[in-house]
């Protein structure tokens, strides 16, 4: 996913931001893939590209074997019910002039031919399932608290019985106490409806709680992807190691002895990324080869994938079914 940079009087294209570059991964049915990384590394762009809220520059996305990377217009619109998104800002992502009932029922309006009573019934049962009082149906989003608004957002995403939901930092804008409620709700819904999640977050402990596999992004690329426990217990990529060392420890005894890996310098501009490995400018274990050759992802067994020259490429990657993206 490249975004053009335009400048000057005539708005000529002078370059491009490689927001997401050469990313390829699978999400298996019924699992939660956590996607973590620092601000601006392209997490949200990945989520939006998968749902085709952006037109991808190159590559392919497939859901259930159906390629959706290049389709558009009404073909894409007909695919929408299968894939939905829960947005980060529950206030801004709800139309302030629509009541809760019309927000939740609008997808039903577009994609189904239910009668008005059935629609209302469906809205009511959706509100029940996300723990909102049905009586609030005719209220406006601004009359709810942040957690309740996020529940509205989730109810809306569930309206069309999607199989795959991208959660784009759904808890980042909420209080910690409310975060737990929303996370539990997402877990319950997954168990009940067999949903598949792509859970984008920068909260490493929440991802550890929720995800079955975790992908770590840095500057538009996935640097490491592994099952949750493998990743948290034995991170291989130097960036993942640094990232995990930043997670605070609740036990003050252990917190005092926590060894932090402090990265020096700033993230390079995605408009002008380093030539070799994107992390070579800040990597504590940088080698000469890192500055010239971009590392290829290597499989370390047990579904653990790392893109780093410290771990030379081994066997090739198996291609599984599920959601696959390359943007």
């Amino acid at each position, binding site marked *: 996913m490249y975004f053009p940079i335009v400048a000057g009087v005539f*708005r000529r294209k002078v370059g491009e931001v490689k927001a997401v570059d050469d990313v390829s991964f699978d999400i298996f049915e019924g699992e939660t893939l956590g996607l973590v990384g620092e601000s601006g590394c392209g997490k949200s762009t990945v989520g939006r590209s998968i749902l085709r*809220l952006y037109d991808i520059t190159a590559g392919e996305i497939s859901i259930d074997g159906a390629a959706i990377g290049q389709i558009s217009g009404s073909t894409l619109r007909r695919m*929408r019910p299968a894939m939905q998104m829960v947005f980060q800002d529950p206030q801004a*992502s*709800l*139309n*302030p*002039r629509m009541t809760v009932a019309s927000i939740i029922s609008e*997808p039903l309006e577009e994609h189904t031919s239910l009668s008005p009573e059935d629609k209302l019934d469906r809205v009511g049962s959706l509100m029940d399932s996300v723990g909102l009082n049905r009586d609030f149906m005719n209220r406006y989003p*601004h009359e709810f608290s942040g957690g309740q608004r996020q529940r509205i957002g989730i109810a809306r995403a569930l309206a069309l019985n999607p199989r795959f939901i991208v959660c784009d930092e759904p808890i980042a804008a909420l209080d910690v106490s409310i975060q737990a409620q929303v996370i539990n709700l997402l877990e319950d819904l997954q168990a009940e409806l067999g949903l598949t999640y792509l859970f984008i977050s920068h909260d490493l402990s929440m991802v550890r709680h929720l995800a079955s596999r975790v992908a770590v992004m840095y500057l538009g690329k996935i640097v490491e992807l592994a099952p949750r426990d493998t990743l948290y217990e034995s991170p291989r990529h130097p960036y993942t190691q640094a990232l995990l060392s930043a997670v605070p420890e609740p036990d003050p005894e252990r917190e005092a002895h926590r060894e932090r890996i402090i990265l020096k310098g700033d993230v390079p501009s995605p408009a002008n990324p380093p030539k070799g490995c994107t992390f070579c400018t800040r990597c504590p274990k940088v080698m000469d080869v890192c500055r010239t050759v971009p590392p290829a992802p290597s499989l370390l067994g047990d579904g653990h994938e790392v893109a780093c020259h410290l771990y030379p490429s081994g066997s090739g990657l198996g291609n599984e079914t599920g959601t696959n993206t390359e943007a």
Partner: protein
Amino acid sequence: MLNYTIRRLLFTIPVLLFISFIVFLLLDLAPNDPTGNLPLTIPPDVRERIRQSLGLGEPIHVRYFLWCVQFFVNEPLNILEQWTGLQFGSGDRLRVQSWATRSPVVDLIVERMPQTLWVVGMSYVVGIIIAIPIGVISAYRQYSWFDQAGTFVSMVGFSVPTFFTGVLMIVVFSVHLDWFPSIYDTTHRVTDWQSFWFQVRQMIMPVSVLALFNAAQISRFMRASMLDNLSQDYVRTARAKGVREPVVLLVHVLRNSLIPVVTVIALGIPQVFGGAIITEQVFKVNGLGQLLIIGIQGADIPLVQTLTFIFAVLIVFFNLIADLLYGILDPRIRYE
């Protein structure tokens, strides 16, 4: 909302009284003379007697009080009598009279109102009808050739004064092409298709000159408001729902964008009643704007005072309407 409206209406009473007093003071301080337009052969002592007979000998607070009685008591009673046919008191009340024409000011206003409402009001409506689609398309296709052209036309409409565009249109369409009459005929009555067609032809030029000006303003507001809303998260939500693009644009974005634009439109309506003074002069439409100009030139203080005050009432009133509309359109705003 009802309580709020009543409270606001009550609050307008002192505001309007204050405005009327300020206007009265300003007119009194202005160095004009109701006898200034009379022939120079009239001797000074006769002029002085004319002034005395107009009541200018009284001190200012007495004159202001008398105007208040005439305007706030006598005129409303008079209107009530006309509407209901009832008789209040003797019916022999002093009305606000124009010094120049010796006829009641309210009658003059009622006479002039239709021309102004037709020409200026129509131009406002036409302006809005043109401006909203232009604003919507300009924002949706930002930086496209349509947007650039729209911006250019808005700049022209904004910056070129109506006395220039009006005269230009007269030169082109009346003098050279001879399509439309250059003078608006107020006595014209619409009786059949032919006279209707004549009415349309004589309205086209003044209406389009003013509509260009109005559309320039409103389309800019519309575009800015649309751009503001197009980048909001809820638009992305709507697209993610799989809503059709026209619905995204017209239901989600346009409805939210119209909130500030409707306010701007409501606030502009008093200007319609005020008439477009310059444009009415150019096309010789004898509407309210022209009446005001004549009144000012002839130092016709009761006429100017009453007209200015009515404009002030309309402005205050439409401000209230704009506030109430905001409350109706935007569910986030509630008045207590």
